[in-house]
């Protein structure tokens, strides 16, 4: 009796393809054995990875650059947000340096000029005890008193504050300033000498000691001699009153009112947001 056709076909397949089937089984076995497969592939992969590392800039550089360009183009707002504080500071610093250079060159030119205007400017400058260049520059970027702090000399505790903004923690600033002052005076100071000035980007901090307390005035912009003199006078007048009446140290409202009285000419107190009209009036009345 003949075998069924399926079996006959199977027998025929085995006869014709026995070698191939055997090879296929060996390959399949190798492929499923992870360790053996890994051994076989390792040199190939290593070679390919090394090639990839060597050629990465050539192969992917243009693609990455293109992707970055697209990303920057599509997210300009975010890019600006990230870069603007850094760029802003750099620009400020650059402008400051350039202004200093400009000051020198203007001075030079002013010395050479004999026009009526120049003579008049020189006359005003000499009356105010400042250079003509200082007058021109300070007209462009006027000095503004941003903050005055009265700080206890030893402890660094804040006694009083007059500020145009209320976004920083004055207690911590007072403490850190005292620590910096103490450190500098300890490290470099001789008897009776004290830290008098700290410059930070476009800010200048003026420190003046008065026995048990010291006063810090933070000024932004270009400070000319006239402004500095006026500020010095105000600080001294304020300090005299403070020394005369110790009651100010304990009464916050009294202290604020005294500070307002002495420093409002330089900058108005930090107030809650007002209407546009009120802001314009305040700006006009400020120095």
């Amino acid at each position: 009796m003949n075998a069924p056709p399926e079996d006959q076909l199977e027998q025929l397949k085995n006869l014709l393809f026995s070698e191939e089937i055997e090879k296929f089984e060996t390959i399949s076995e190798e492929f499923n054995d992870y360790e053996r497969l890994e051994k076989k592939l390792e040199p190939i992969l290593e070679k390919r990875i090394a090639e990839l590392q060597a050629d990465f800039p050539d192969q992917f550089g243009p693609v990455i650059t293109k992707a970055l360009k697209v990303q920057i183009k599509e997210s300009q707002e975010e890019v600006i947000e990230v870069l603007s504080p850094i760029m802003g500071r750099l620009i400020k610093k650059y402008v400051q340096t350039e202004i200093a250079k400009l000051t020198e060159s203007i001075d030079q030119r002013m010395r050479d000029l004999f026009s009526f205007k120049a003579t008049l400017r020189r006359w005003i400058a000499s009356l105010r005890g400042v250079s003509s260049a200082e007058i021109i520059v300070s007209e462009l970027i006027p000095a503004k008193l941003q903050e005055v702090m009265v700080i206890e000399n030893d402890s660094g505790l804040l006694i009083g504050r007059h500020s145009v903004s209320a976004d920083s923690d004055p207690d911590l600033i007072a403490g850190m300033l005292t620590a910096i002052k103490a450190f500098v005076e300890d490290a470099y100071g001789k008897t009776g000498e004290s830290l008098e000035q700290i410059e930070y980007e476009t800010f200048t901090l003026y420190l003046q000691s008065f026995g048990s307390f010291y006063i810090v005035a933070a000024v932004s912009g270009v400070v000319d001699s006239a402004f500095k003199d006026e500020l010095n006078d105000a600080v001294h007048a304020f300090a005299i009153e403070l020394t005369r009446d110790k009651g100010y140290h304990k009464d916050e409202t009294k202290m604020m009112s005294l500070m307002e009285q002495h420093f409002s000419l330089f900058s108005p107190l930090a107030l809650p947001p007002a209407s546009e009209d009120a802001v314009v009036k305040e700006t006009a009345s400020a120095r």
Partner: protein
Amino acid sequence: MQKKILLVGDFGVGKSSLVERYVNDRFSEEYKSTIGVVIQKKTVEVDGQSINLLIWDVAGSREIAEVPASYYLGSSGILYVFDISRPETWAGLPQRLATVREKAKYSSESDRLMVIANKSDLCNAEDLKEVLGQVSVKVDIVTSAKDSLNVDSAFTELARRILTE
């Protein structure tokens, strides 16, 4: 009412970690050395009275004399911190404390200088007992910034002593 307090002691004893735990209720395993001084503040209620504590976390130093004398001026209280697991941080403690008292102008009777044994999480009860027996001064409180053990109590107790004195 505002009061300035100081944390002093050898480097790496956990002063900044204690302040960080107390002010922000945070702890980090990462060690960051303090440069100069870091100031933080926290308001604490003691016996119905509110005190604004200005906390000066002074950079650690093996020699206590290296801390600028002016940092101590005007301070109302001091926490001297040592690390239970490092004997060198509590060796010679009486002399170190005497220097601190002298610099801060505290009398020898004043209890506004508190001694803190920190990092209790690094030892078991027996080791702790042994260390406390070896430390030649009275330890006011045992703390762990990591486990948040007695951290609030240390600062509150100092505030209480400041108010009392």
